[in-house]
């Protein structure tokens, strides 16, 4: 959907001085954008906050996130436990704060893995498509394989993957990488398809550069922008998927602090009236995904020359 966005990115072979100036100019522009669209600033603030919370959770939390204290089970929010306690007396505040460590790790690793694998294969597939070699056949095969993967019901596929690899963080990362990889594959392929016919690529080819060299030095750097925009949105989406997996019992092992599994553990209590074990982790989860979506949206605007122009117009 965001195809053809990134051709405006840096042309090859610029020297360092203008690059520096441009970087400073970009920063100023970036700040101006944040001022004009405070909602983007909110996004960056949320993401920063969540990352910092995750990093500092061990020193910030008042209670151990996996320590059950049966004397204070199911306490409503109040003094002592500001978000209350769950059915085994674990402090919900401490658990909500600790959860980004797991959730973000899984989401970021899964997304990066899928992006790396997806872009690499997508670039190769795009580069070799249409040339009459065995590589073309391979490239077609890869695209059809991606079709197959994408035709799967995502959630069922992810659960099946976790079931096969066993319930662990590693499996969830793998599952997320698997279901996301085709997105990057397609994105990269269509980018590369449009770039590889450009003059400078042909020039590099004539100059005798190897295929891989051309790809690495000239094609991928110029095609990467939409992938970056996709990354942030995808991290948020992966957090949702992780939570969903935990909700059906195919996620992280209890009692690891993880938003989805916290919601699931509190599920039964909601009907008997104790809403807090489920509601607070849900809010934290929603906010986090919201933050990443905002950041993704800002990158999308910044990476799209047309929309950037509109925006700088409004900035005056």
């Amino acid at each position, binding site marked *: 959907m965001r195809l053809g966005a990134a051709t405006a990115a840096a042309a090859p072979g610029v020297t360092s001085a203008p690059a520096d100036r441009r970087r400073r100019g970009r920063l100023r522009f970036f700040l101006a954008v944040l001022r004009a669209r405070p909602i983007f600033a909110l996004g960056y603030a949320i993401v920063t906050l969540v990352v910092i919370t995750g990093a500092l959770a061990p020193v910030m939390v008042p209670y151990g996130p*996996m*320590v059950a204290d049966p004397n204070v089970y199911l306490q409503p929010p109040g003094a002592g436990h500001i978000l209350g306690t769950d059915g*085994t007396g*674990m402090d919900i505040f401490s658990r909500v704060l600790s959860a980004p460590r797991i959730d973000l790790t899984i989401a970021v690793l899964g997304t990066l893995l899928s992006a790396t694998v997806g872009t690499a294969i997508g670039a190769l597939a795009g580069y070799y498509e249409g040339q009459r070699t065995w590589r073309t056949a391979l490239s077609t095969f890869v695209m059809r394989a991606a079709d197959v993967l994408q035709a799967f019901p995502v959630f069922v596929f992810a659960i099946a993957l976790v079931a096969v690899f066993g319930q662990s963080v590693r499996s969830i990362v793998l599952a997320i990488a698997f279901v996301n990889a085709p997105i990057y594959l397609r994105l990269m392929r269509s980018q590369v398809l449009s770039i590889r016919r450009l003059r400078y690529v042909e020039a590099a080819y004539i100059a005798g550069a190897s295929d891989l060299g051309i790809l690495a030095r000239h094609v991928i750097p110029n095609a990467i922008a939409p992938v970056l925009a996709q990354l942030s949105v995808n991290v948020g989406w992966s957090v949702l998927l992780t939570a969903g997996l935990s909700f059906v019992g195919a996620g992280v092992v209890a009692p690891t602090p993880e938003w989805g599994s916290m919601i699931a553990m509190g599920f*039964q209590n909601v009907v*008997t009236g104790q809403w807090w074990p489920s509601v607070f982790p849900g809010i934290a989860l929603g906010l986090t995904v919201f933050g990443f979506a905002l950041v993704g949206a800002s990158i999308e605007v910044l990476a799209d020359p047309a929309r950037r122009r509109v925006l700088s117009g409004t900035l005056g």
Partner: protein
Amino acid sequence: MMRRNAIVGPQVNRRDLLKSSAAVAAAGAVVPTALRWQQAQAATSSTLVIAAPATPQSLDSNFDVSLGTFEAVAALYDNLLEFNKIPDPKVPGAFREDIADHPDKPAGLAVQGKLAESFELDPNGKFIRFQLRQGVKSNWGNELTADDVKWTWDRKFGLKAIGAFYLSTLGLEHPDGVKVEGKYTVSINLDNPNPLLAKLQPNLYAPIYDSKKCTEVATDDDKWARKFIENNSAGFGPYRLEQLQRGQQAVFKARPDYYLGRPAMDTVIFREVPTSATRASLLQGGAVDIAQYLQPLEIIKLRGQPGVTVDSVAASFMIWLELNAKTPPFDNVKVRQAMNFAFPQEQVLKTVFQGLAEPLTGCMPNIYAGFTDKFWKYKYDPEMAKALLKEAGLGAGFKTSLAYNAGDPVQEPIAILYQTALRDIGVELELKKIPAATFYNAVSERKQPIIFYVDSPWCPDVGYSMTLYFNSTSFINYSNYANEAVDKLLKDTARTADQAARVEMMTKAQEIVMSEAPWVFIAFPGYHFAHRANLKGFTYYTSNNIRFQDFARST
């Protein structure tokens, strides 16, 4: 004897049924829709609606042990004998089986004839002879004869499933042991004396089949009518099966020609509702008459609700952790003891069971004659646990894992509390959640270092109970526990009808088992029967299921 949750994708819709409750729906039609959901269903209805965690997987008690199977079996079939009923000492209006020792009565038991009019037991326990009731008809209209009893036992021999366990418990080695002595007379003859010959007859694994119908539907491939019995019924019980939609519901209809008279509840709808919170709220709203297997918090909440009654009676249920004696370090008695001393039993009873359970202070149900808690010594004592680990050479602690059933909501919190407590003695516990339907597999594989188990020995007998879990060759000895002295005591107990001697030997066995701690002892959860207040007749059975024929609505 054991149950396994079978949670199947829940209901989709129910077609062509509920004819009788259509009237109920129509009566509520004038009330605005939003309000009608809270309305109690008509109190005079003779339809009994039960919210259960799962519909029966199969109706054949020879194979299936899943939830709901035995509710169905108890309604569709009758046994030769049953225990007398007495009022429950704690709960007014509730009844239970009289399972105490009665040395003055025949066989030392308070049993009465059901399909058998009378019986005659060899004082040495080598044979039992039944006189069958005459004129009893099955749901297919066939009359009960001695051939039906014979066929029922032959089927156990033929299928070698759960029935085989039953046969070996009795020591019945040949099909010829069951003799047809007349049209209405049949006897069971053993090579060795067995104390359980009469006591096992009321068991839900011993329903009598209509052999005529069964042989009619049997095929060469399926000599024992497995397919038919799995999905249908051919018995002499008070109900017949109207419909079975697995994962959705089972419907039973009362038999007008039942030999003890037509049961009060005409239609029974056994509805699958996988979430316990939903079952509780359905009961509270009056949409169902009975909500089975609720969580402690829900029971507490329901107790204060108008129109709802919860009968909490002492029961044969036990919940414990199997410590796998074949997996180090649990091959070491000291480590197993340490695991018990480190278990915060009191806290678990208070937090997880909300005070509704009793501490498991022995290795068999405390409601059975012969139980003793005098060998209990595992009060929470982390220092003692540390000391024992040190003696075992594991002072630095160790890592292990605990598997629990995703379908049983009390297990996860218990596991988490235990995990926290074990950290104090340096043991790192990893929790493994296992889907309900495969949990039983994980148990019977006996490969997990520690795994939860909830069970009860159905036959209210001290020797039977102990053999089940601690005989080294028992198929449900899931902790791989083996002790020669215990095996010997169990063998001797199974061979004598002298009840006093049996109790003495089993006391000795309990002493050994309790000291060797093959389990982590958790709780007697009790039986909590949550129902609409106008439903009367609840009877507690040691098999921990309800029998539809017991119920009637008070006016």
